[in-house]
């Protein structure tokens, strides 16, 4: 049986762990609020961008000169999955769930006979995926250098993807990231980024033009071609922002649990400690009494 001193040490150690998890929870809560605000602030731009793209793409998709970013390369042989995770752990199943989703997607695609390439944004995803799919990873980016996610961050990711696309390294690009549903629920999902047409056609509200036709300046093709890369960046940016919010939400929940568990453990250990102490006193008393009786 553990001695009293051991128990005391143990209780102290659990107490300090609890202090740490509590602090981490509070930090996560503060960061969550900021991340949520950032994600919300970016939403109008993304929505507007999607609406504009929807209008243009309908007009342009049928024409032969349409950008491959919009309509794709006409093949679906090689897939590029951009897996977005957090840079840090200690946020429950957040990273694992995203990686699991990515793994599922990779396996399905490979079963269909497609080539798969991976870009891992965020440290944790790369760490987990390299065990099984090290050969598929073409690039790993971590964001630990960036304090806040801005257009510049997503621009870097977007540039890399476009560069690969222009070199014909893949046909279809999908983002795997967490959708921020609420503080306690983040759902991993895969979303098509290139060809953009498929993504745009899904549930975007088109403004009612009342039958009028857009006039465009310089012309629609030029506009579309300047806009497409920017659209991709915007989608990446909002995915990144949502991911940060999701990470913080998951971390908050995980740390809340940890704090509660630590509390329970402390209660239990205290009970054992008191019982052991009582037992020791009783034993000592019995020894003294029986000693006195023997005299």
């Amino acid at each position, binding site marked *: 049986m553990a001695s009293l001193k051991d128990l005391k040490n143990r209780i102290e150690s659990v107490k300090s762990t609890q202090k740490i998890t509590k602090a981490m929870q509070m930090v996560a809560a503060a960061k969550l609020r900021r991340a949520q605000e*950032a994600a919300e*602030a*970016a939403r*109008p*731009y993304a929505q*507007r*961008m999607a609406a*504009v793209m929807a209008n*243009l793409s309908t007009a342009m998709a049928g024409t032969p000169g349409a950008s491959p970013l919009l309509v794709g390369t006409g093949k679906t042989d090689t897939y590029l999955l951009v897996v977005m995770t957090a840079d840090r752990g200690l946020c429950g199943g957040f990273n694992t769930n995203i990686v699991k989703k990515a793994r599922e997607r990779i396996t399905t695609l490979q079963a269909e006979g497609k080539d798969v390439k991976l870009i891992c944004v965020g440290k944790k995803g790369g760490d987990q995926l390299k065990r099984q799919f090290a050969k598929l990873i073409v690039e790993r980016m971590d964001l630990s250098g960036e304090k806040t996610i*801005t*257009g510049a961050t*997503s621009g870097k990711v977007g540039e890399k993807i476009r560069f690969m696309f222009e070199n014909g390294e893949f046909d279809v690009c999908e983002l795997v990231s967490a959708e921020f549903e609420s503080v306690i629920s983040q759902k991993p999902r895969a979303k098509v980024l290139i060809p953009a047409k498929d993504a745009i056609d899904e549930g975007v509200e088109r*403004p*009612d*033009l*009342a039958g*009028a*036709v*857009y*006039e*465009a*300046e*310089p012309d629609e093709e*030029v*506009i579309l071609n*300047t*806009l497409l890369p*920017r659209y991709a*960046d*915007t989608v990446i*940016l909002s995915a990144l922002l949502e991911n940060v919010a999701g990470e913080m939400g998951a971390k908050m929940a995980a740390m809340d649990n940890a704090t509660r568990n630590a509390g329970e453990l402390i209660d239990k250990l205290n009970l054992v400690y008191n019982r052991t102490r009582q037992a020791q006193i009783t034993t000592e008393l019995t020894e003294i009494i029986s000693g006195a009786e023997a005299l």
Partner: protein
Amino acid sequence: MADKLHFDLVSPERRLFAGDVDQVVVPGEEGDFGVLPNHAPFMSVIRPGAIAVLNDGSTERTFIHGGFAEVTPAGLTILAEEAIAVADIDADKLAQDLSDAREDVATAKDEEEREHAEALVAKYEAMQAVLAN
């Protein structure tokens, strides 16, 4: 009451302006254009420069770098890469930034670096042009 134009100015990070105004003058790729209420549907790429928002007799100018304007029956939307109110531009700092950027162009080690620096020079020059008038 005269009609008002609904105007949204959004950048990737946040919404900068949303409200009803009298008129907005936008520097389009192929020349400035003014947008009044009930403008026909129209879209244009924006060249770096200042938009002027006219409302109730006052004019507010905002520097826009890289962006896109869309007019729908619902109003005008400007998607700007970067936006800063002209009143907030610091002329001294701008001059400093510009000379720094020019220096960078001169000392750039490779093509990519130079392109980046040149883009900055172009942007700062556009900002100065806006300040000048």
